[in-house]
């Protein structure tokens, strides 16, 4: 390695060691821009629409066993989303810094809670993540570092959850890496889900927000468990081969099952070429058609 290269690397390392020089202010209310992935952020995705998810076999099998009725189980009515819901949910963000009272240095950034997601506290003071036997709580445990003007937050110790609201699972062993990038009054948030239990590759979602003068709420209402018709102890699920929605995307949109069942291959453009002859354009769009007719 030449002297110049060594010098460059040392310079880069020094920058990483002193990120405060590049910090930018992320505080404020950020209004969600929801036209991107609007179905997912709005009414919810179609059942068994897992195209673009890098499932392994276990992830696909777990998703196929999913019955929407489980959210009516008394034990799950007040279940919360993981921090992944920043990517998949519809809500806006409010962020603020928590300074050290003596030095004024930012100890943590907080992303306020939503109705179904706990707040994310991003510790900036270099503390380690808890050990493997520590509990996983609703917030997860998040630490952050600055990479230039980009805040990178790493969340571990999460509970089980979903990366898509139609049953695509995430495990308690997953790590969520959240990148916050500010460009003037625009905030881009990119989330990477690394889940060794259910995914073969990271799953990535981005979304954008506009700085707003309307304050975004920083918490949701309390949750009271009611009776939604699933008796305590019953576990709704579908047996293998019995999920009634497995061909839903084929019936609605002509999309072949091998695409809607997901897998890493379905994330890449080359896959469209592979399945183009199996795609049949339906005579009429029946659901979620925007301006193409139908509902």
């Amino acid at each position, binding site marked *: 390695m030449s002297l110049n290269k060594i010098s*460059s*690397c040392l310079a*880069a*390392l020094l*920058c*990483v060691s002193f990120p405060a020089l590049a910090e930018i202010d992320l505080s404020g209310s950020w209004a969600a821009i929801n036209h991107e992935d609007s179905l997912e952020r709005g009414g919810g995705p179609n059942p068994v629409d897992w195209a673009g998810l890098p499932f*392994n*076999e*276990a992830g696909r*099998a*777990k998703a196929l*066993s999913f019955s929407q009725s*489980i959210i009516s*189980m008394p*034990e*799950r009515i*007040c*279940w*919360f989303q993981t921090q992944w819901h920043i990517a998949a949910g519809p809500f806006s963000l409010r962020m603020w810094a928590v300074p050290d009272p003596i030095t004024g240095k930012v100890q943590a950034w907080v992303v306020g*809670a939503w109705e179904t997601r*706990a*707040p994310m506290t991003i510790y900036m003071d*270099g*503390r*380690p*993540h*808890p*050990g*493997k*036997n*520590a*509990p*996983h*709580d*609703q*917030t997860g445990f998040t630490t952050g*570092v600055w*990479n*230039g003007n980009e805040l*990178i937050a790493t969340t571990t110790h999460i*509970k*089980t959850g979903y990366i898509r609201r139609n049953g695509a699972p995430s495990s*308690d*062993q997953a790590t969520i890496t959240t990148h916050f990038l500010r460009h003037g009054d625009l905030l881009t948030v990119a989330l990477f889900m690394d889940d*060794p*239990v*259910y995914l073969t590759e990271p799953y*990535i979602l981005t979304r954008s927000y506009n700085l707003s003068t309307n304050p975004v709420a920083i918490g949701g209402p*309390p*949750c*009271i*468990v009611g009776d939604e018709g699933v008796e*305590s*102890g019953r*576990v709704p*699920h579908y*047996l*293998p081969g019995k999920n009634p929605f497995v061909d839903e995307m084929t019936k609605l949109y002509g999309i072949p099952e091998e695409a809607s069942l997901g897998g890493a291959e379905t*994330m*890449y453009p080359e896959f469209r070429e592979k399945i183009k002859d199996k795609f049949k354009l339906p005579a009429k769009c029946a659901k979620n058609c925007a301006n193409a007719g139908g509902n």
Partner: protein
Amino acid sequence: MKRILPNALKCWTVATAFGLVVCGALSTRAAEPENGELDVVQVRPNFYMIAGAGGNIGVQIGSDGVVLVSAGAAAKTGEVSAAIKKLTNLPIRYVIDINADADFVGGNEKLAKSGFTIFTNALGNNGVAGTMTNGGAASILAHQSILNRMSARDAKPSYPGDAWPTEAFLQNRKALRMNDEGIEILYQPAAHSDADSFVLFRRSDVVVAGDVMDTTRFPVIDLANGGSIQGEIDALNKLIDLTIAPTPYIYKDVGTYVIPGHGRLSEQMEVVDYRDMVVLVRDVVADYIKQGKTLDQIKAAHPALPYETRYGTQPGVTNGFIETIYKSLTAKK
């Protein structure tokens, strides 16, 4: 989407990754014990979980002394004793056993003898203490089923008499009060085996659950010693009933803590996840039995596939679980 990074970003990414690796290694060392060392996790101000000594151990500390739930494996007794001494100088007064497996009762004798009986006081009373305990050691409290298993002539491993429970009870519920706290020992018939109990600490809001729940693997159900799949599900449902989720302010606080037999400290939702897993795999196996499939055909069909990458990574665990479900469901009534 392929990740294609421009050169500048690559340089930053490499530098950042290097920095994180260096810092991460140091951080991890601070947060995690070295391989093979015990991991002492504070659960509440007066309550700890010791992991890494065989089965997880619950430690309640107060003015009366130390109440242990499970004694861990025999080989780890010295380390457990040293870990407790770092937490308090008070003596162990009770060891409460919650199953009869060696990784839970192996430390009974030594830990009890390192403690001090409750059957004495400032005036003496050594005669009673000697009669009721192993020469003034802490009491070993357990359901009768555990005493039966440990004292059986063909017990494997065999245990000396001083390792056996000194206070055995026959009821399904035994209650006591230590350290200003109500403690309930709740017998769970025919779950992981026929010798399981939960221990509920009412003020601390902690349940020590033993091997009915194991966050590291599928449940190991000991059919030969009275375990059953339905008993396992019943016990998990009971465990859910004993716990309280942190509603209505769901993210403001934690709920009841559950110390599983192995693995990490949990709350109600982890028990629900585990129960749901057991029910789902049971239902799939039952459906395959109904279709006339043999055990080998069922194993080949991977009925536990949705959970194999989470709970089935240890050798033989998945097939063992499927086999116990199959045998449990096909056993003649």
